[in-house]
């Protein structure tokens, strides 16, 4: 026999029973689909879970200090206060800065640029910061260095530019001691920031950062507006509660604290991610099972054509035939539900024993499983039962017995 003939036979065999072929293919489609989905979704969910556990978001705290109400009102957070927070157990870095109020950015120009066609003045946010900013915001330096405690103490007119700010000002190198004019005052650029690790502090990329003392001398940026704290892993919640008291003992409630979600809700989120994923997989396997029942019931109907003919001859109505096959597939689904629920519970217990976990079984779900199985069987039996009921008695009696 030639291979071509074999293929012809196989293809005509597949084509001879279109409904069965479609059901079988559907089973394979859903099965393979599940496999691919499983791999895809589990990778995606893995990402999701990893994202929730990301150390950077789990250890970063930002305190927003409200603008003082009156011109002469004392600042809510004094420049010595961040030092108190730094002494708290669990704080790895803290920085504080004042900045030009939103929408009132200052004109900045680089004096090195001589190209007359360039727009010289850029309106950029200007920050007066403590020297600890790179550590507290996980910022790296693309060039040069950040200013240190000495610069701050001496009120040196130096500046560090955010990466975007440097690009806008046309500064790419600092070895030629470039200067920037901030609102007319000259500052020597000693460094350019690289990437900023903390996602909530990306504004630094566009900013001009000065020692807060030097900024205070001529630019009137006002008191501290933002405090950025980085903590040890797991300490964020505690520090988020303690920091406002250390920063502003008189009115800690007045400070607005952005802290990472607490571990309990984080755990809840991860648990929801995982069980959502498993629920989808469970539902898909249920669909595969339903297609299996439908297929087998259809085969049964075709095999038992003569029996259907006999029953019709003995006075069975179409309805009686349909109900018989619906009941058969429902019973199969019910039994599958009972056995499946028991096997599932045993599996949970077995896995728990191996992993030394405490097994947790949803009683309602276990009790409802047989019903769900029966429902799946009922739905799966609809098409085969309809086929059986539609058969003509005379034709059916001639069929296979």
């Amino acid at each position, binding site marked *: 026999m030639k291979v071509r003939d074999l293929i012809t036979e196989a293809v005509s065999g597949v084509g001879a029973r279109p409904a069965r072929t479609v059901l079988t293919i559907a089973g394979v489609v859903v099965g393979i689909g599940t496999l691919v989905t499983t791999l895809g979704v589990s990778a995606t969910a893995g990402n999701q879970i990893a994202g929730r556990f990301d150390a950077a978001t789990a250890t970063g705290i930002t305190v927003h200090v409200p603008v003082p109400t009156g011109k002469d009102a004392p600042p809510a957070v004094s420049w010595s206060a961040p030092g108190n927070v730094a002494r708290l157990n669990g704080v790895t870095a803290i920085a504080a800065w004042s900045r030009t109020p939103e929408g009132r950015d200052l004109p900045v120009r680089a004096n090195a640029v001589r190209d007359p066609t360039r727009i010289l003045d850029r309106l950029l946010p200007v920050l007066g910061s403590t020297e600890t900013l790179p550590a507290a915001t996980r910022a790296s330096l693309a060039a040069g260095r950040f200013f240190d405690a000495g610069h701050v103490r001496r009120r040196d007119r130096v500046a560090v530019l955010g990466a975007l700010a440097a690009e806008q000002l046309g500064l790419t190198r600092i070895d030629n001691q470039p200067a920037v004019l901030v609102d007319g005052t000259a500052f020597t650029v000693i460094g350019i920031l690289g990437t900023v690790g903390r996602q909530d502090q990306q504004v630094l990329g566009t900013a001009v950062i000065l020692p807060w003392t030097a900024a205070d001398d001529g630019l009137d940026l006002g008191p501290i507006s933002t405090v950025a704290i980085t903590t040890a892993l797991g300490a964020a919640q505690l520090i988020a509660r303690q920091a406002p008291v250390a920063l502003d003992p008189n009115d800690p409630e007045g400070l607005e604290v952005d802290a990472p979600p607490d571990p309990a809700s984080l755990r809840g989120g991860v648990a929801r991610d995982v069980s959502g994923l498993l629920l989808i997989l469970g539902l898909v396997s249920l669909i595969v099972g339903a297609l299996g029942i439908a297929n087998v019931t259809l085969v049964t109907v075709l095999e038992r054509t003569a029996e259907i003919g006999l029953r019709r*001859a*003995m*006075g069975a109505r179409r309805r009686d035939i349909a109900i018989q096959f619906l009941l058969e597939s429902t019973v199969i689904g019910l039994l599958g539900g009972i056995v499946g629920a028991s096997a599932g519970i045993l599996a949970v217990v077995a896995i728990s024993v191996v992993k030394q976990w405490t097994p947790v079984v949803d009683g309602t779900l276990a009790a409802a499983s047989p019903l769900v199985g029966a429902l799946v069987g009922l739905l799966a039996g609809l098409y085969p039962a309809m086929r059986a009921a539609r058969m003509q008695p005379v034709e059916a009696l001639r069929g296979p017995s």
Partner: protein
Amino acid sequence: MTYVLELIAVNRVFPADPPVTALAGVDLRVRRGEYLAIVGPSGSGKSTLLNVLGLLDVPSSGNYLFEGAETTTMADRRRTELRGSRIGFVFQSFHLLMYRSVLENVMLGGLYTGVPAAVRRTRAVAALDRVGLGHRHRFLPSRLSGGERQRVAIARALVGDPALLLCDEPTGNLDGANTASVLDLFDDLRAAGATLLVITHDATVAERADRRVRITDGRIS
């Protein structure tokens, strides 16, 4: 009423190209308690006639009165009900359920006409005694001889207490000895007052009937 059934000028034409006239102007009357054989060669329309008589099929034209009631205009449901309660079928290939015991197979008779299970069981036991298989209740059909299988099928047909027993080539799959046992059973049933209509192409089977009707090319002669 003396006739169990009356066919008057019945035609059955199958829509094909060209249309097949399987029954042409068939007139037939069967009295209560009669044992009638219908003989004819293969393709002469015997099975088509049996399907019409058994209310499994509807004539294209003509009238069919069963126990005095016109059946050609009946609703499908009413015909199904009549078929289940008043007609017993015996087929050439027995049509037993291979996965059910002999007793369970016989109890299928009357299942669809609302006879309670307990009554069906009593009747099934009686029917099996009648066909001489009272000792085979728990057997599966696969362990019976052909003649025994056909007698189980006859017992199943008797459970509903039908007005007519329709048999399509009942001995077609049986050898001589088994044929004889089935024909002896028909004689017993006839003696007990049953109405029997047997379709066959076998002359020795037809011999045993009270009356023979020949069918050729869809016409009774």
